[in-house]
Structure formats: C-alpha cells, structure tokens
C-alpha cells in the first residue's frame, strides 16, 4: 500500500495519462472534422480544388487566381439577394428579410440553411446550387491554402511518411507538370506565337522558381532585343527553340514596326555548322519566318551574296587583314608589310576597290606607283616600290582567301535587301574558312547597324566552330549602342568560347537570359543563376518508421537552377534563366505551313538575276533537280509594293473619264 501510494503519488496512472493525452491530441482533429462537416460544401470544393491542383501540378497561386475569378459570381449573387423582393416567388437561396446590409451579411448563413433544408428533402442538386455562390470561391481558396501547405511541407522536408517522400513527391509533381504542359501544347490555339499584349510565347510553363508562374511562357520583345545564350546538346530541341525565338522576334518586331514604334526588324543567323542539315534548317527557318511576317529570307551564300566592299575604307583594311591568319614573333614583320600594301590598295586615289578582282589587280607595285604618282604622293610611291617583292606573296594569300571564301562576299547585296539572312558557314568541314566568313559577316553587320535603321538580332548557332576568331564579346560591348542584339548558341558550356574567362564573360552579359537545354554540365550556369533561401528540416525517428514530433529547421541557400533537373530534361524542354529566377518550359514547335514557292516557279532557270530578286540570287539545285530553298522577292515596303509594275490602265480610264490629270 505504501509502495503503491508512493508509486502513484505524483499523478494519475500512466495508462490514464496516456489516454488523456491521446484524447487531447484528438480534440483539434475532431473540431476540424466537425467544422468540415458543418461546412460540407466548402470542404468538398476545397478537397476537389486541392486534388485538382495536385493532379495538374499547378502552383497554389493559380488556385487563388481561380478563386478570384469566381468572385464576380459572388458579387452578382449578393446583389440579387439585396435587391430580390422577400415575398417574391422563386427567390434565390440566401434571400431573407431585413435591411440590405443585413441581407448581404446574412446571405451565406441563409444559403447554408437553404442548402441544409434542400439536402434534407433529398434535393441534392438544388442544395449544391444553393450553396455554390459562397462555397465555390471560399472552397477553392481553402484548397489552394491546403495545396500550398502540402507543397511547403514536402519542399522543406517536414512532410511525408518516409525520408524519401519529399524527393518522390517532387519527381511525381514534375511528371504531372510536364504532362499538363504537353497537354497545353496539344490544345489548338492555346499557344500563339505572340500573346495579346505582344509578348513572344515560347511554350508552356512546366515549373517556375522565382518567376511569375503563368500557363504560357512568354517573353517581352525587349528581352529578345538583349543578348541571350542558348546551350543544349545535339537532339535536345535547340533548333526548335531557336526557330521559335527567331519567329517571335520577327513577328513582334514587325508588329512594333507597323505600329510605328520601332524600326523594321532584321534577323541575321550565322549557322556555323554547315552541310545538308544546315540547309534543311534554313529552309525550315524561311517557312517559319514567312509565317511570322517576314517578306524575304536570304540564304547566304547559296542564293544571296553580300558585298564586303561596301565597308568604309578604314574598316575594310582591318577586315581584310583579319581575314588572313597572322603569326606572331618574327611573322609580325610580314603582317606589317601586308598592312601597308593593303592600305595602299584600298586608299588608292581612285577610290576603294569595288570587288575582289579589283582589289587583287591593285596589288601590283607598278599600278600603285602610277596611281599615287598621278596625285603627287611621293611617300606612297616609295612605299609601293619598297614593298615590291612582297606584293606577290600578299596577292597569293588573298587569291587563296577569295578562292576559299567563294563569291558570297563579293556580290552586290546588302543586309537591307531582306528581312532575314540565314548565313551557312561550313564550320564543320572548313573551320578556317568559316571563321573568316563569320568575321567578315559580323563586320559587315556592325557597319550596317551603325545606320540605325533596323532592329537587329544576330544569332550565332554552333558558335564553337568560329569562336576562335570571332570575338563575340567585343561585339556585345558595342552592340547596345548599335541597336544590335546577339544570341549565341552552343552545344555545351565549353563550346561558348576557348577560355573560361570568355565563357563567363559571354554568359554573364546575357541580359536577355540564358536558355539551357539538356546538357551534362549545367554547373556554371547554375552558379550564374544564383541562389534562393530554402527551409531545410531534419526530423527524428521514433521507433520503426514513425516520425517523432521533434526536429530542426534551418534556412539555407540552394541554387535557383536545379542542375539535376537540367541533366534530366527531355527533348523540347528548356530551363530559362533570367535575373535570379528560372522557368522550365516545354517549347512549342513551329512548323512552316506553306511551301516556300510553287514548284513551277522553282523550275525556272535562274540565270543571272530574276526580276524582283537581288543580283546573283540563284536557287541551288537539290537532289531531284529542284531547288531545295528558294529566294523570296527583294524587300520592298508594303506600301510601295507594285509601284513600278502597275500596268497601264489608261485604255479603260481614258475612255470612261478622259485623260489623266497631273
């Protein structure tokens, strides 16, 4: 007895105490269940909306937006309740006596009473309708809160039955989000190229971190007018993404131009891979761009040519020298000699050369001496004579250069001739030639951009092929003042440039964002994307597989861009990194609808310049003898189209109204 008294003197029996604790723990659950039953309509809608959010992988914000969208229904219902005569027959649920404010305040309760009465009599559909006005928005909102709580618990590691539950939850959530995005892609008309407010829609949003979570991933046009970087391995959907971005740039730019708010857009693509695949992409680009509103897409050098000789003389000298590789050390002597001779040829008193043949003809000591002697420039004559022995070497090098470059830079065309230029550089087969061509084309473009008459996007695809001699970051630095945006794409981080410094320089100055498709090394971009705060929770096991109630939570920084997700991205999925946030996008593929030109027109022999086409344009024959890509007519402003070729109708007009009035 004493032992017993001593044993239980400190409190109730442990079993009773445990039972009491258990009952106390159950009380909040019982209360919640009672409220849930009491507000059954709200509970049902909340459960449904939370389940829907889970099923579609929606962020909670979209459920809140859905609740907000249903508020007009509530307003209309409250207005009806306030205005409805009490004695009127067939009054809506919630109508009752009293002043207006009381009617509106008591409307939810009266609706609930009406719902209960109807349900009691077995009219379940009528009961649901009676309860709907207050229950729908409230239920969706509660469902959103529940779904947000669930997401937070799993993200912070505080939810789930097993330690692996958060990871499994995230993986399943990703799959559902991808499924939802793909369903949106399949819906006809759901993802137009331009949104109503003029943004460029790239695809459906899968998931976003620190970015606004809209259904469609849309970029403002200004973002495409900034430098961008695209990284993705072969076969991950890079070309599809690029075509979408180019078409969006063209469509949005033309819309701004039509509105008078911007200059006409110009897209210049340097496809540095070359070969048959590049030509297929060029043809696809032409179709897509035509659908986007581009009047003409020139394929260089197959169908169109540019003139390097349009550069101003000082710029021409620099470009000509850059086209030829120089050595260092002792070879610098030859570089200086070459520069002197090229300067003499370009700055000759008769004006700069007009073609490669003209330039090569000038690399002659006697010709230069005669030309400069005629204007009394004794210094230039002396220079020409002193370098007489080097002329043959310099001429030989430039002859070899022009032979390799072909006629693409020796024509009469200009970037002004088309809305888009697709330049194919044989970077895979002839890297040195492609590098020289890329250098010349960017110099020409930079010179054209100085005029400030176009909004230009320069897209360099497979940049790694020409990165050795194309200092794109130099172009970056002066591009903004020129109205020129640069978009660089590569298959990997290493393909962006030769040195790590240059890679970081290119990526860090990509103000328009970085597009990251599946790539094995997303680390550097993840590092550039930044970090975000993250609640990390550790919990303690109590027994076999059951969580204890205690644990620790702490805030730590994790990368915004999940490198594991990037490594696992499927074809057509891309992570868009911009200003410390990332949006994962399922890219919507664009397909050119119509053929570039009717086959009958393609069969026309393209000897010389066809009417309406820039000089030198000639379709290249494909395997079946037809041209695989066809040039479009030369650019002309829409308003002045057909000015020149309006046929004479004076026959009928003179007969009807007399002679023309001037």
């Amino acid at each position: 007895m004493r032992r017993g008294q001593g044993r239980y003197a400190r409190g109730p029996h442990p079993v009773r105490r445990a039972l009491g604790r258990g009952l106390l723990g159950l009380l909040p659950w019982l209360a919640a269940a009672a409220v849930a039953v009491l507000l059954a309509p709200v509970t049902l809608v909340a459960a449904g909306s939370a389940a829907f959010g889970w099923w579609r992988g929606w962020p909670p914000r979209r459920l809140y937006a859905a609740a907000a969208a249903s508020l007009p229904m509530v307003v209309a219902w409250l207005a009806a309740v306030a205005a409805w005569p009490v004695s009127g027959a067939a009054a809506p649920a919630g109508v009752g006596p009293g002043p207006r404010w009381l009617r509106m305040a008591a409307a939810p309760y009266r609706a609930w009473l009406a719902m209960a009465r109807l349900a009691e009599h077995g009219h379940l559909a009528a009961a649901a309708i009676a309860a709907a006005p207050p229950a729908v928005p409230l239920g969706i909102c509660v469902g959103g809160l529940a779904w947000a709580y669930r997401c937070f618990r799993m993200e912070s590691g505080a939810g789930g039955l097993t330690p692996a539950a958060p990871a499994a939850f995230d993986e399943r959530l990703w799959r559902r989000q991808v499924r939802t995005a793909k369903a949106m892609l399949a819906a006809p008309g759901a993802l137009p190229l331009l949104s109503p407010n003029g943004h460029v829609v790239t695809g459906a949003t899968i998931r976003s971190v620190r970015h606004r979570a809209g259904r469609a991933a849309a970029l403002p046009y200004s973002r495409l007018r900034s430098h961008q970087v695209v990284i993705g391995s072969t076969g991950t959907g890079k070309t599809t993404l690029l075509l979408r971005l180019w078409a969006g740039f063209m469509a949005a730019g033309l819309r701004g131009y039509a509105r008078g708010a911007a200059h006409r857009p110009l897209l210049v693509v340097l496809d540095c891979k070359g070969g048959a695949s590049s030509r297929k992409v060029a043809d696809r680009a032409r179709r897509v761009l035509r659908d986007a509103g581009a009047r003409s897409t020139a394929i260089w050098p197959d169908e169109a040519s540019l003139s390097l000789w349009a550069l101003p003389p000082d710029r021409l000298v620099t470009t000509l020298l850059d086209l030829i590789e120089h050595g260092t050390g002792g070879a610098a002597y030859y570089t200086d000699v070459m520069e002197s001779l090229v300067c003499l040829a370009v700055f000759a008193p008769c004006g700069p050369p007009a073609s490669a043949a003209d330039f090569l003809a000038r690399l002659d000591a006697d010709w230069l001496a005669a030309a400069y002697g005629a204007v009394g420039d004794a210094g230039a004559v002396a220079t020409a004579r002193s370098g007489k022995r080097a002329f043959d070497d310099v001429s030989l090098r430039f002859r070899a250069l022009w032979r390799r470059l072909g006629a693409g830079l020796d024509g009469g065309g200009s970037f002004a001739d088309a809305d888009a230029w697709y330049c194919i550089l044989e970077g895979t087969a002839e890297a040195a030639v492609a590098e020289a061509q890329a250098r010349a084309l960017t110099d020409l473009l930079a010179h054209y951009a100085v005029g400030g008459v176009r909004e230009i996007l320069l897209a360099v695809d497979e940049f790694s092929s020409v990165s050795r001699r194309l200092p794109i970051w130099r172009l970056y630095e002066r591009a903004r003042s020129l109205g020129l945006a640069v978009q660089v794409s590569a298959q990997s981080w290493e393909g962006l440039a030769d040195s790590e410094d240059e890679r970081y320089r290119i990526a860090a100055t990509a103000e328009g964002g970085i597009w990251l498709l599946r790539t094995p090394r997303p680390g550097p971009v993840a590092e550039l994307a930044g970090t975000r705060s993250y609640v990390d929770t550790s919990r303690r096991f109590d027994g076999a597989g059951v969580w204890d109630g205690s644990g620790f939570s702490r805030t730590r920084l994790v990368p915004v861009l999940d490198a594991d997700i990037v490594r696992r991205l499927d074809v057509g999925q891309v992570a868009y990194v911009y200003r410390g946030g990332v949006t994962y996008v399922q890219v919507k593929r664009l397909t050119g609808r119509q053929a570039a030109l009717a086959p009958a027109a393609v069969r026309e022999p393209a000897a010389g310049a066809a009417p309406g086409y820039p000089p030198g344009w000639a379709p290249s024959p494909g395997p079946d003898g037809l041209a695989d890509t066809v040039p479009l007519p030369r650019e002309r402003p829409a308003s002045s189209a057909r000015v020149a070729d309006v046929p004479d109708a004076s026959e009928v007009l003179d007969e009807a109204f007399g002679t023309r009035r001037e």
Partner: protein
Amino acid sequence: MAQRHALPGTNVINSQRHQSPSESPEVRRGPGLAVRNSAALLFAADMYGVQLDQLAALTGGERSARAAIARWRALGYAQTARLGPGPAWLWVTRGGITACGLRYTPAQPALGRLAHIRAVAAVRIALEATAAYQSAGPFWRCERRIRARHGVGVRQHLPDAEVHWPDEAPVAWAGECWAVEAELTAKTVARTTQIMREILSRTGDYGCAAADAAVPGRPPRHARVLYLCSPAALRTVVRARAELGPLGARVEVRDLPPGALL
C-alpha cells in the same frame, strides 16, 4: 405611305396612294407581273438610290425607266420621290432588297449624301460603258456592300467602291482590285494624303480582323486607287498624290464624268 415617308418639301412622283404588295390588285392577280430590268434594280439597291436620268441610262431610255419604276412600285420593290434638285430619286425598299437577295438595311437616300451618291453612280455607269469593262466583266463592289460587311464602330476609311478584275480578263490589269473614290469637295491635302496612304497600304478585306488590315509583307489589297474629282477637289487631290512620292504612281486622278454633279 410614300407621302408619309417623303420629307417635307418633296413631291411624290406618283400622286396615287401607294399600296403595299398585298393590297395591290396587280399583285393579287398572281405571277403575271415580271420584274423589268432586274440588273437596274440591283444597281439601285447597291448604290443607295438612283436618279431617274441615270436609271434611264441603265434601262435604255426614259420610257423604259418609267415603266420599270411602275413595275417595281407595284411590286413594292422601290419607292420614288423628288428629294432634291434635278430628276426624282428611286430607292429600293425592304421587299426589293430581299428580292435581290441582299442584306442591306433599307433606307431612303440621305439628303446630305445625294450629290455623292449621284457622283458614284455616274462613275459606275461611265466605267461600265467602256469596252474593256464589258469584255472583262469585273465585279463592282459598292460602298453599301463593303459597309454591310464592315464592323460597327470600327473607324476606317471605306472607299466608295472596289472594282475586282477577274484573273482571266483580257486586260493588262487582270487580277487587280481597284479602289474608287469620288471626290466632290476638297478636303485638306494632309487628310487626302492620309486616306490615299491608308487605301494603298491596306492588305486585308474590309471587315477583317484589325491585325490583318495592314500587315507588312503581304501584297496590298488595292493595286491602285482611282480618284474621280470635281473641279473644286481636283487640285487638292493632285497635290496629295504628289505628297505620296513614288506611291503616287498607283493613284489615278481623273475628272468626274459629265452629268455626275447634282
């Protein structure tokens, strides 16, 4: 009924009381009453209304015109009244518009537009009389037809007509679409230039989505615009055309045909 509809100060041509088709003994007789000159009836429906002298030009003489009017009035297809100076006006009623298979809102020609309606009708008659027009057989799309398709509340300048030349027509301008403007009074040069530019840069049909109205890159809807001017408006139109620069090559300026002015 015609008396009631006529405006104060106007005289009704036919002093007899107008009868509706159901009341008319001729109609009650059955199908013996044929529609004379149905093309002229369509013309009158398209052009809002037509004056007696212009109708005579369409039907081949004043006598046949009066006979056609009598038939149309008996059928309830048209009404006539002396609305302003010059010959009486004829306009097509709801019954006539329905009989023509058109969907216009029936209305008596507005007094303020009588001169313009007459001028456009005269232009059409003059153009249709040419040999090239008759051999090519183009389609005259009148302003009333354009307006019927045009959205309410959309502020766009509508031409007085469009002439669609068939692709197979034996003329050099086959396949073209012309805009026709009858200019009676002088606007400002700036406004006229703006209208010309709007017409020449238009790419979509009237009534199309606003985004398709003038899309760069698409071929222009109107290959040329034909301005028929009164002496008062001629100078302004010529100056406006000069303001357009090279675009002015697509603007044809001519005098209104004789008898076009009210």
